């Protein structure tokens, strides 16, 4: 294999990739080992931290006195710490690892400059740690999705820029002539995100826009983090692992390409639907609603494609841990996206906006879709970079069922509770028709709060269920790292015997 090239050589277009031989999959996987391990271990750590903050916040919603004596554990801080830990800690770390592991495999080239990625990963994790500590001591910026104080963000941006530069290098040196649809998704995500992030930081933190423009930029950014970062990475993983695990090509590659380009063109405009009914020019809102509806195209196209790929292979769900999580995530993507488009309709938004319905929707997207897909990807990646089998099938099963049932319960619970809350808040006539209140006069605000309490309690129970799953996952994750390779007798999660795979890069 070609020796590690200098950074300058990689950046110089004059150096062609002709001298790079086509790498074997095992070589490629081996070259990703250290950065992937570092990122995934950090991700799992943040997942656990984020889960603790989630549980604390959830309990506080129905028992406000819980841990009420600690300033740094007040709701405004724990909820924000939860969001930032699971989004920037768990999700971004996991998506970095999955994105570059996929990139290396799909461009058929060993991972170049693994050191660069590790440096980026270290910067990223220091940035997230500083940011969350800042939130807990009370330095939150109060701008949703950008709560980390200004002293943490340059580190994060630097890390992102390094990862973006790395992706371009890997892409250029790829030996695969065809750009597979997953590569399009990953490239798009890596290209757009630093751009989004820097503009949002400048316009909101360093030289803040005022008034409604601030809200507009805030939601343009916040929705695009989901739409142009997490969604593409999640879909890239589904488009790779679904056919790869089944051993059959995606049903229609044409549809997958159509899905990508329609997402790329429409998603950027959809964020304004968070401000429907707000003091923003109506034409801007209408543009956001139109874009949200155009998103039905990529969603339906992707759903048809994934489902028709699965047809005839449902039996495979029994034997593949990766497939279970990936299919659960793919189905959730369809459901949550269609809900998202529906919620952009003015008359629906009138009921669901500012209620727990939105929280349920957000978790369906970030958890039932994205996080489950990341779990599935990690189950596939770890045995291949460590050349070891997962130690416990039971823990994997436990992880799947607790998180699948827990997240489903969570989403249904909050959507129902939130909808009732919204009916009482905004549409007394409709609420009366549904038998939720005696008269057609608006009810006192406190009644709209009280009605949500049982749903909030159920949210905590479903949260406990998911926590059990996360602990099972973390145990299995730590176990596969520390167990000795010799202890493995069979290699069912692998497809070749270890000696063939033990080829190291360089």
């Amino acid at each position, binding site marked *: 294999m070609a020796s590690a090239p200098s950074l300058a050589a990689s950046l110089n277009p004059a150096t062609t990739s002709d001298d790079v031989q086509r790498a074997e999959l095992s070589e490629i996987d081996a070259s990703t080992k250290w950065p992937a391990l570092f990122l995934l271990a950090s991700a799992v750590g943040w997942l656990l931290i984020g889960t603790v903050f989630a549980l604390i916040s959830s309990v506080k919603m129905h028992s406000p006195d819980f841990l009420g004596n600690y300033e740094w554990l007040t709701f405004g801080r724990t909820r924000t710490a939860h969001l930032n830990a699971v989004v920037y800690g768990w999700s971004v770390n996991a998506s970095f690892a999955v994105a570059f592991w996929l990139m290396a495999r799909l461009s058929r080239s060993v991972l170049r400059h693994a050191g660069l990625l590790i440096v980026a990963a270290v910067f990223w994790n220091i940035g997230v740690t500083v940011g969350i500590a800042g939130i807990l001591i009370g330095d939150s910026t109060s701008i949703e999705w950008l709560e980390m104080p200004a002293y943490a963000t340059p580190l994060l941006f630097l890390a992102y820029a390094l990862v973006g530069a790395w992706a371009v290098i890997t892409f250029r040196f790829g030996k695969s002539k065809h750009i597979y649809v997953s590569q*399009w998704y990953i490239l798009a995500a890596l290209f757009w995100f630093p751009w989004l992030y820097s503009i949002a930081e400048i316009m909101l933190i360093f030289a803040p826009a005022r008034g409604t423009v601030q809200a507009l930029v805030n939601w343009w950014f916040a929705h695009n983090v989901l739409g142009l970062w997490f969604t593409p990475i999640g879909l890239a993983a589904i488009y790779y692992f679904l056919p790869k695990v089944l051993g059959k090509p995606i049903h229609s590659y044409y549809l997958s390409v159509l899905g990508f380009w329609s997402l790329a063109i429409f998603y950027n405009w959809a964020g304004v639907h968070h401000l429907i009914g707000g003091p923003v020019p109506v034409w801007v809102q209408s543009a956001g609603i139109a874009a949200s509806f155009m998103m039905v195209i990529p969603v339906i196209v992707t759903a048809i494609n994934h489902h028709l790929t699965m047809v005839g292979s449902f039996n495979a769900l029994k*034997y593949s*841990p990766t497939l279970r999580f990936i299919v659960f995530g793919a189905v959730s993507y369809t459901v949550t996206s269609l809900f998202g488009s529906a919620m952009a309709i003015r008359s629906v938004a009138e009921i669901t906006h500012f209620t727990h319905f939105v929280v349920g929707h957000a978790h369906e997207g970030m958890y039932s879709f994205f996080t489950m897909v990341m779990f599935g990807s990690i189950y596939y990646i770890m045995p291949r970079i460590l050349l070891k089998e997962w130690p416990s099938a039971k823990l994997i099963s436990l992880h799947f069922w607790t998180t699948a049932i827990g997240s489903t319960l969570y989403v249904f619970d909050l959507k129902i509770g939130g909808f009732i809350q919204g009916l009482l808040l905004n549409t007394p006539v409709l609420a009366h028709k549904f038998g939720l209140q005696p008269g057609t006069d608006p009810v006192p605000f406190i009644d709209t709060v009280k009605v949500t309490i049982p749903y909030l309690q159920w949210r905590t129970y479903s949260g406990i269920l998911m926590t059990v799953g996360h602990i099972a996952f973390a145990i299995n994750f730590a176990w596969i790292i520390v167990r000795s390779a010799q202890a493995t007798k069979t290699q069912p999660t692998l497809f070749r015997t270890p000696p063939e795979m033990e080829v190291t890069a360089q």
Partner: protein
Amino acid sequence: MDWFFYAVALPMAVLFLASTVYALYWASQKGQLRDFDKGAESIFDDEEPIGRPTDFFPGKSPAVKTPASKS
């Protein structure tokens, strides 16, 4: 502050769109939008051919390890 939106945020959104449209143009010029069957099969090779599942629960490997004839 209306000017701020019109001067920065809107052009940025338009630029985003423009970058996407350009990428689509580039892809069509490079032939990425032709021969879709080949595209779908590009993730398989001799090492991991079509017809062979690649992931199982540990300790529960079924008898599907025989590689399929078609590739």
